[in-house]
């Protein structure tokens, strides 16, 4: 490894939507991956097709990280607004590469130690190459010079990303790259260049949570998906549409969320593993269907990739404010499972488990993502495909049915799960309904039957708790302070804990992966701690409230919340916790 090489680098490329910020990041990602860095990528866009402020941020680090860093080290800005918006996040001694096509940068908002390289990319791109779009490759040329990358390596990365473009486009981009390198070498001092590490490159996937959900679902035998486009969940639909033909699966775009969820129910009844995916507003529309799946006992997986609410809220921003709706929403009492993955590998694993669990419990299983988990991409080790196993649940085939003297779709059983036959199976004719009914499926409002049936459905959950995924815990198991968070908090908590531990604070952490029902593991973690900080992205403290209702002691729970649409940075979370600890000590000292 090179001496003084960068171990952790946060790069932002920002401009107007359509400027091509993602292209620059993609080429840089290729470069960093070749140098053995782990990657974490996030995009921040306005809710419009083109225009509006758009930024792509990537963290390259030699340690695996699950979030962006506290500061930006390198900013490629195609406009003044991009600099103004990022100004407070710029690290000391950071570098801004600025497109000065519309004039010199006004650096009023910047700290004096931020260095600025001003090059009119756009103007040069039009002048030399006749197209504004080539400013992207030009800016990558500048970047590659600053990062001490030689021409061959920079060109290789660019060619890899553009490998599907026509030859003349590749040639033009290569020319742009070299122009950029040339300008940079004239403008940027040789001695101020940075150096990348050259670590061993391991086999990695760069995948988003939404893509991992789709992939896990297919692997778990999911063959029917219906969805309605909604930010930030659309990639689940798009991924499945892309891969469906190969597995003879169906991924259908419905006319609305009601149709999507009910199509999935219809397919699920025939025994085909089915899923729908949406975000908060769509999930609200699906409430009735989720209750129905709970009542009629139909296996259904529903993905809710949460965005900032209420109502239309901030469609492109993350939040965790649908916890109440996922856990308590919809009419009536019925069993449901809510699982919350924290990163792409988790998304894959829990997608497999959710698909299995729906079959095993014959009830709705909800996958609770948030925009950051769903849309941000990170590098992970390849999935262990051989480890995936299908759990068929209590499905009856024709020969099993033939040997039974009678078949009752809603037979009362010890664990509440009734054996079931799907349409087309001789002898399995049945009535499936959201009405209260007797074991035969015939509508009934008999009080005793009612109690029996409500209890039977609830028993499916209560007697199968061992099937529910455990959380991930780490840190100092004997510590008295605990950090607890789900979804996008996981990566931030992990890094904050490492820093706090380094600063002498003993800390343990839990990322619960089953959030409903609240399982013993979660409560035991809280009970064994003096204080647990519940870290979440919503104003009301929905997760903390859920844990309190489940029996956590109020004196023990500290609630750390954010709801501005921006994820916590590790540093921000560290300060919050240190402040909360200081406040506690202040109180106990008085």
């Amino acid at each position, binding site marked *: 490894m090179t001496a003084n090489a960068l171990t952790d680098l946060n790069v932002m490329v920002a401009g107007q939507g359509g400027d091509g910020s993602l292209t620059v990041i993609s080429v840089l*990602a290729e470069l960093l*991956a070749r140098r053995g860095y782990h990657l974490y990528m996030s995009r921040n866009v306005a809710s419009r097709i083109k225009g509006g402020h758009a930024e792509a941020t990537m963290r390259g680090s030699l340690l695996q990280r699950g979030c962006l860093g506290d500061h930006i080290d390198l900013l490629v800005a195609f406009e003044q607004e991009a600099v103004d918006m990022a100004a407070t996040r710029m690290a000391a001694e950071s570098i801004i590469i600025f497109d000065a096509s519309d004039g010199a940068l006004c650096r009023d908002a910047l700290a004096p130690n931020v260095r600025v390289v001003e090059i009119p990319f756009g103007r040069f791109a039009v002048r030399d190459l006749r197209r504004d779009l080539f400013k992207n490759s030009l800016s990558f040329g500048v970047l590659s010079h600053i990062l001490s990358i030689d021409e061959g390596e920079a060109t290789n990365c660019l060619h890899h990303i553009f490998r599907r473009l026509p030859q003349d486009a590749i040639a033009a981009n290569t020319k742009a790259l070299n122009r950029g390198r040339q300008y940079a070498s004239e403008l940027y001092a040789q001695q101020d260049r940075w150096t990348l590490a050259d670590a061993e490159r391991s086999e990695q996937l*760069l*995948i988003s949570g939404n893509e991992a959900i789709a*992939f896990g679902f*297919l*692997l778990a*035998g999911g*063959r*029917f998906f*219906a969805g309605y486009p909604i930010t930030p969940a659309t990639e689940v639909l798009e991924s499945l549409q892309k*891969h469906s033909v*190969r*597995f*003879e*699966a*169906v991924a*259908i775009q*419905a*006319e609305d969320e*009601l*149709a999507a*969820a009910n*199509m999935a*129910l*219809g*397919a*699920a*009844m*025939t*025994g*085909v*593993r089915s899923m729908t995916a949406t975000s908060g507003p769509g999930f609200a529309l699906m409430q009735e*269907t989720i209750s*129905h799946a709970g009542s*009629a006992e139909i296996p259904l997986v529903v993905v809710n990739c949460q965005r900032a609410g209420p109502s239309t809220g901030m469609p492109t921003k993350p939040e965790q404010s649908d916890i109440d709706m996922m856990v308590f929403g919809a009419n009536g009492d019925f069993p449901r499972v809510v699982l919350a993955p924290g990163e792409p590998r988790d998304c894959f694993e829990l997608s497999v488990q959710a698909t299995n669990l729906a079959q095993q419990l014959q009830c709705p299983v909800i996958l609770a993502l948030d925009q950051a988990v769903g849309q941000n991409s990170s590098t992970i080790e*390849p999935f262990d*495909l*051989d480890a*995936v196993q299908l759990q068929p649940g209590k499905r009856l085939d024709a020969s099993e049915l*033939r040997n039974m*003297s*009678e*078949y*009752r779709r809603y037979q009362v059983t010890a664990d509440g799960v009734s054996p079931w036959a799907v*349409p*087309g*199976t*001789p*002898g*399995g*004719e*049945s*009535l*499936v*309904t959201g*009405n209260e009914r007797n074991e*035969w*499926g*015939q509508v009934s409002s008999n009080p005793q039957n009612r109690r029996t049936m409500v209890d039977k459905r609830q028993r499916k959950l209560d007697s199968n708790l061992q099937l529910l995924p455990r959380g991930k815990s780490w840190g100092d198991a004997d510590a008295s302070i605990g950090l607890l968070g789900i979804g996008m908090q996981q990566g931030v908590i992990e890094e904050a804990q490492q820093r706090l531990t380094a600063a002498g604070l003993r800390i343990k952490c839990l990322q619960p992966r089953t959030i409903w029902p609240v399982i013993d593991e979660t409560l035991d973690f809280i009970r064994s701690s003096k204080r647990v900080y519940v870290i979440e992205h919503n104003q009301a403290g929905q997760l903390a409230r859920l844990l309190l209702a489940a029996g956590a002691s109020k004196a023990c729970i500290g609630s750390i919340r954010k709801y501005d649409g921006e994820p916590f940075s590790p540093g921000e979370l560290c300060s919050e916790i240190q402040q909360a600890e200081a406040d506690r000590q202040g109180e106990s000292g008085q």
Partner: protein
Amino acid sequence: MTKTYQPNEPIWCAGCGHYGVRNALLAAFRQMQVESHQAMVLAGIGCAGTLQNNVSAYGYHALHGRVLPAATGAKLANPRLDVIAVGGDGDGYAIGCGHLIHSFKRNPGVVYILMNNGTYGLTKGQHSPTADAEETDEQAFDGVQLGLSIPGSGFIARGSSASPVQLQALMVAAMEHTRAGKGFAFLEVLSPCVTYNDTYPAWAGRMVNVDALAEYDCGDRIGAFTAVNSLLVENRFATGLIFKQDGKSPERRRLDSGQAPLCDLDISPDRQLSGFREIMAGYGV
């Protein structure tokens, strides 16, 4: 033989049009030699939405207005099933009307029997979308007119519970249409509610049976649209097989392209590991 549920007696009032619908459906099943395990009868909410309890089949009681998406999912997943969706005019023309439009457009091999009685019977007599304009200050909705206006609609018929022989024939034609992979078959049945909106006498003189008109061509969309609209202007309505055009259902397109029914797929992951590995490799960096 495995014993399973016994169909209930209907909950409908004596004289309800829906008895005629059920009887015609049972007769059509017999005529088409439908085996009870191969039929899936999905029903909406309301009086019409209890029909599935009164036939021997795989029955499903859907949410209000959502019977068509559920039926679409079931048919796409198992194209061997005779998928029959049933419901009332409130279910299909009010709360579920968006799905009706898209079912015409999507064209799944589903028979949809919509029992139109111009009222909300189960909630005791509120106006439905097809209620007479004189009573509601709103113009009555016409599902046949809607269906004809949507490109891709391929089977539009209207029967009456007062004409059981024709009704059975229309149901058989609808099932043949879906079984042949031609797609969605829409059959509205004028099925009066004798308690809240007894339209037997009022409708009797207003129906014009196009099956009996020698010059009527049910393959001509423009002609059908003109005829249906002309009759509506005269405060009458067409019955019979109003429009028929051969399309191709999505489940048939799947089968024609060599893909197996979803319900028959071997989903064990090790059967397709190479495919999964290839997709995973696509995410490699």
